[in-house]
């Protein structure tokens, strides 16, 4: 008993340490993101630029670059990373499956199909928009429809089966992928290029209207999901055990799936598909501090935000003035880290 207590104590201390470290690292990374770019600005110019843009005076070029380009971009990357990281942690907990990431329930594929549909069929209509582009709306609608469909498939009078839901998600992903490829035959060269660029994802469309949408959804999600931490912890024991603990599993599941769909759908709509953050960030955090969702959810959000901010900064500067797709960088930074952790813990599993 004493040993267990002490292990638990150590783990809690470690969790607090990690949360503090992540919370300290995120602002630093964001400052780094503000400081780096195709144009090199000195610290004084950055401060002046920030001041000028907060004062609403955006005539200076440095103020423009900081206020109109880098600030919304860094903030958008942080919010998207947080949404993806936390959604990933919630999905893995909900499905009790280490492979589960939000794309598994069909959100990503549905959203991609929605976007491709708008790009190909919309054609010349893609003009009258500025903030939330038609493509984003298409993506969001596609993602939401896919989740509703998958959820319906998995739900019968006897409840919702997680296994069926995963399988249905895979089926819908395959179907949406096939329909997307079919659409690409209808697309001309230009549309093809646009679809492929969109799929690669990126923060370069960051502006304040998009940031506003991202902040509203992000704030709601980041507040709502941690309230289900206890449920997710109980679900780790098993579904019937969770029911015995008095948890309304079905209701919690609907709430979680809805939040994840909204979060991931929004992120795909705003910045395209950025794979990997939602899958691997929660794993990395879990390997560091264990599976307690009270820590795992906020820590995954912070770590996801850090990863995406750093990756986006690199995407901007590595080949400047050319932009790299951010998904390439998240994979290149994150995967080696993930593999090295895996090698240290051969017996890693969800139960840890």
């Amino acid at each position: 008993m004493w040993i267990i207590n002490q292990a638990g104590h150590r783990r809690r201390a470690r969790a607090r340490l990690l949360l503090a470290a992540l919370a300290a690292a995120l602002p630093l990374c964001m400052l780094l993101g503000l400081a780096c770019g195709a144009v090199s600005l000195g610290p004084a110019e950055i401060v002046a630029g920030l001041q000028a843009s907060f004062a609403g005076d955006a005539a200076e070029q440095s103020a423009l670059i900081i206020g109109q380009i880098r600030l919304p971009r860094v903030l958008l990357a942080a919010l998207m990373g947080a949404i993806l990281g936390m959604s990933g942690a919630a999905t893995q907990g909900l499905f009790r499956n280490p492979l589960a990431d939000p794309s598994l329930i069909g959100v990503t594929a549905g959203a991609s199909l929605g976007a491709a549909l708008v790009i190909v069929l919309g054609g010349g209509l893609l003009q009258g928009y500025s903030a939330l582009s038609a493509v984003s709306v298409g993506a969001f609608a596609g993602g939401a429809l896919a989740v509703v469909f998958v959820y319906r498939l998995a739900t019968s009078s006897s409840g919702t089966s997680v296994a069926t839901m995963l399988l249905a998600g895979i089926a819908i992903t395959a179907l949406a992928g096939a329909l997307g490829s079919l659409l690409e035959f209808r697309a001309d060269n230009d549309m093809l290029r646009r679809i492929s660029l969109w799929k690669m994802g990126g923060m370069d469309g960051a502006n304040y209207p998009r940031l506003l949408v991202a902040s509203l959804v992000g704030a709601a999600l980041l507040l709502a999901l941690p309230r289900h931490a206890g449920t997710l912890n109980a679900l780790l024991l098993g579904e019937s055990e969770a029911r015995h603990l008095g948890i309304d599993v079905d209701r919690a599941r609907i709430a979680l799936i809805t939040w994840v769909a909204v979060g991931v759908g929004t992120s795909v709509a705003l910045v395209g598909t950025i794979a990997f953050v939602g899958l691997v960030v929660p794993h990395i955090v879990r390997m560091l501090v264990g599976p307690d969702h009270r820590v795992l959810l906020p820590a995954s959000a912070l770590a996801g935000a850090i990863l995406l901010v750093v990756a986006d900064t690199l995407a901007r500067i590595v080949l400047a003035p050319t932009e790299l797709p951010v998904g390439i960088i998240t994979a290149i930074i994150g995967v080696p880290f993930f593999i090295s952790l895996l090698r240290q813990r051969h017996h890693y599993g969800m139960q840890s």
Partner: protein
Amino acid sequence: MNRLRWRARLFAIALALPVTALAQAVSVVDFSGRTVALDAPARRIVALAPHSVENLFSAGAGGALVGVVNGSDYPPPARGLPQVGSFNAYSLEAIASVNPDLIVMWGSGNGAGTLGKLEVLGIPVYVSEPRQLADIPRDIRALGVLAGTSETGEARALRLEQALAELRLRYGSRTPIRVLYEIWNDPLQTINGDHLISQVLRLCGGRNIFADVASLAPRVNIESVLVLAPEAIVASGMSDSRPQWLDEWRRYPALPAVRNNGLFFVHPDLLERPTARVLQGAQSLCEQLDTLRH
């Protein structure tokens, strides 16, 4: 029986001989460096790219077209022609079934291995790959030769060359103007110096600000646009109307292109297709850029 057949065959050869002797054998070197030789000018041509269809019409060989790909929308008579698929998903069977005596393929567009697959059909293949401005008249000329309409092709090619040379003479050495050619706004995409459009810019006395970037159609950073401070931003968009997103640059009033009303639109088909219509695109571009020189 056998004898009869022999006699028939001899007769056929005897009949055919004078015809082949009359028809003029033609040959050209295509864009992949192969020599394309035909015993007689092509009468039934399949073209696997919209720009090839357009160039065949320019060369006076539009009447010989028996198969085109989707998107071959210019000139208008091209719209009614039988389709053999799309440029990236054509049907070999559909091509064979229209019984062509020449296939015009698109070197980089039809996909790797296309040449091999077409050659299996035993039909002569001409590879078209116009990358430079001077390649467009060359393509029209070669297609005219292959279709036996070399007079029309030659005349059209010469006219195009002269008109482009006139534009170059008139605008090429005027005060250089830094230009951003914006293919699309989100993501922000442009072209580098190897692209045909960049050559048209040069012809008009413009300078592509992203000429030195490595990839042909790079996604670029908006910050670097502010730093390179283009005096003109030319957008193409996807349709025949000026894209609204061109005005999003007005958020940056300090940008020379915004300050001096240098936000221009040129129809994408006039600049992005390597055909004779590039002349109209160049004319429009040169005139618009020149308004900045006063």
